[in-house]
């Protein structure tokens, strides 16, 4: 450690000692907020889910309706996340690598789904594809069902998760600039070679981070999916909707058991997020040292 950093550290320590009391109070308050707002709900979900023992817990999760809800949730995630990854990369590419008029508007439009209520996200697809919607008669003539069926659920899930990947990639790619890509091009790489061998390795962790956030939201979306699902048990029920049905039937233990499953997935997602975040900050640090 250099002298200057030693001095800085010791003066920081002095300041810390000076405000030792307020420091303790603030940390205590921080812990209190954490325990009260974040830990307690978590404990309640698991506790209630297990209140009939492990047998009841697994019975609720392995019941056919729950399994078909799980299948539908996985299905919606597997379609919406890759589509939004391709969109996110394309959008981040044109926003970060070129300058053009109207860019600020484009970025605002990409973020738009975040400020639209999920219920409105469902509503707009009902107005488009519902029986009395714009395309309703045509769809009926051709015997295609979008709303109150799988495609509607997938569409609503895509809508609410549109911005996630693009949002993570845009600042990252702006920071990285275009030098490495230009070098690759000048050395003779074609467009796709440049993309796969230069860009993708550079944005890999940002991409993973975006995918993690996107997956979390796609898996848990409730309002938008609720509008377009029609709540047909075992057919158009995702896991969060299944939780709602069980809860409203006063089957609380089963509701909390299925909720525990979602909670465990959420904690796993947090872990992945932490991990990709750590990798990104390590990359940034390395880049700064170079």
């Amino acid at each position: 450690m250099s002298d200057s950093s030693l001095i800085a550290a010791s003066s920081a320590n002095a300041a810390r000692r000076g405000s030792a009391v307020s420091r303790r109070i603030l940390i205590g308050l921080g812990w209190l907020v954490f325990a009260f707002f974040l830990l307690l709900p978590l404990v309640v979900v698991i506790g209630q889910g297990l209140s009939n023992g492990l047998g009841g817990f697994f019975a609720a999760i392995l019941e056919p309706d729950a399994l078909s809800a799980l299948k539908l949730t996985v299905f919606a995630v597997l379609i919406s996340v890759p589509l939004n990854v391709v969109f996110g990369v394309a959008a981040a590419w044109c926003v970060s690598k070129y300058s053009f008029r109207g860019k600020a508007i484009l970025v605002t439009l990409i973020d738009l789904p975040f400020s639209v209520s999920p219920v409105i996200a469902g509503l707009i697809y009902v107005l488009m594809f519902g029986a009395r919607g714009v395309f309703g008669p045509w769809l009926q003539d051709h015997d295609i069902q979008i709303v109150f069926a799988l495609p509607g659920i997938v569409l609503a899930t895509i809508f609410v998760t549109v911005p996630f990947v693009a949002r993570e990639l845009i600042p990252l790619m702006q920071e990285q600039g275009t030098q490495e890509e230009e070098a690759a091009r000048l050395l003779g790489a074609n467009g796709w070679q440049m993309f796969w061998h230069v860009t993708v390795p550079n944005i890999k962790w940002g991409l993973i981070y975006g995918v993690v956030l996107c997956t979390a939201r796609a898996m848990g979306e409730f309002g938008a999916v609720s509008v377009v699902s029609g709540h047909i048990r075992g057919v158009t029920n995702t896991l969060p909707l299944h939780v709602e049905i069980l809860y409203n039937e006063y089957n609380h233990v089963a509701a909390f058991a299925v909720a525990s499953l979602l909670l465990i997935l959420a904690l796993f997602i947090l872990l992945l997020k932490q991990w990709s975040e750590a990798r990104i900050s390590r990359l940034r640090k390395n880049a700064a040292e170079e």
Partner: protein
Amino acid sequence: MSRRISPVIPGFGLTLGYTLVYLSLIVLIPLAVMFIHASQLSAVQFWNIVTAPRVLAALKLSFGTAFCAAIINGIIGTLLAWVLVRYTFPGRKIIDAMIDLPFALPTAVAGIALTALYAPNGFIGQFAADLGIKIAYTPFGITLALTFVTLPFVVRTVQPVLADIPREVEEAAACLGAKPLQVFRYILAPALLPAWLTGFALAFARGVGEYGSVIFIAGNMPMKTEILPLLIMVKLDQYDYTGATAIGVMMLLVSFVLLLLINLLQRRIETPN
């Protein structure tokens, strides 16, 4: 459209084209359809729908509770950001990682968990009930649910800005005789305010539209604890598409105006004088 294309990096047309087509198909055209659907109403009809007493009550409730939740988050979010950035203590990393739980947890799960805690027979609700306070099934419960769901916004916007303010600045102010509150008022608050407002606006916008976590704890009594998104849902269940659309459009417009105001306020703060 004038554009400066980097001469050697390909893909401008492809990526911009794809972005615009995808956004149009998924987001813009469906939203436009809603506005077109609403435009079939005359101004008077629209006004009558959105000023019906039940709609106005829901409007006040949704925006009021979202505002309160955003304010509460402004306070505890700043506190958490401060503690996480400025102090090292046991458990700091766990708290830091868990801050994002409300974003990762499906809102329906948050909804039933909070209801189980704050219902009159719940773990916390029963003590409150003994004191004669009802939490779940009141606007207070709704505010609580919104506070939970939007908790990460203020923390995550304030945290990086706070980390960038060198501690020396505060120390210098303290050496020159500033009291802790003065340091906060004159040094920290001005630097943090733009980020704080961003977090506040994000939390507020999310709170107004939030559905999943609220409907379980709200009780959903018309005129009393019925939020705007739920009212849209009710109208849809009654096949009143026009009513649902009018409320949806009104909700988007009001949120848009409020976010615009917050944005203007932010610009005013960021540009000196």
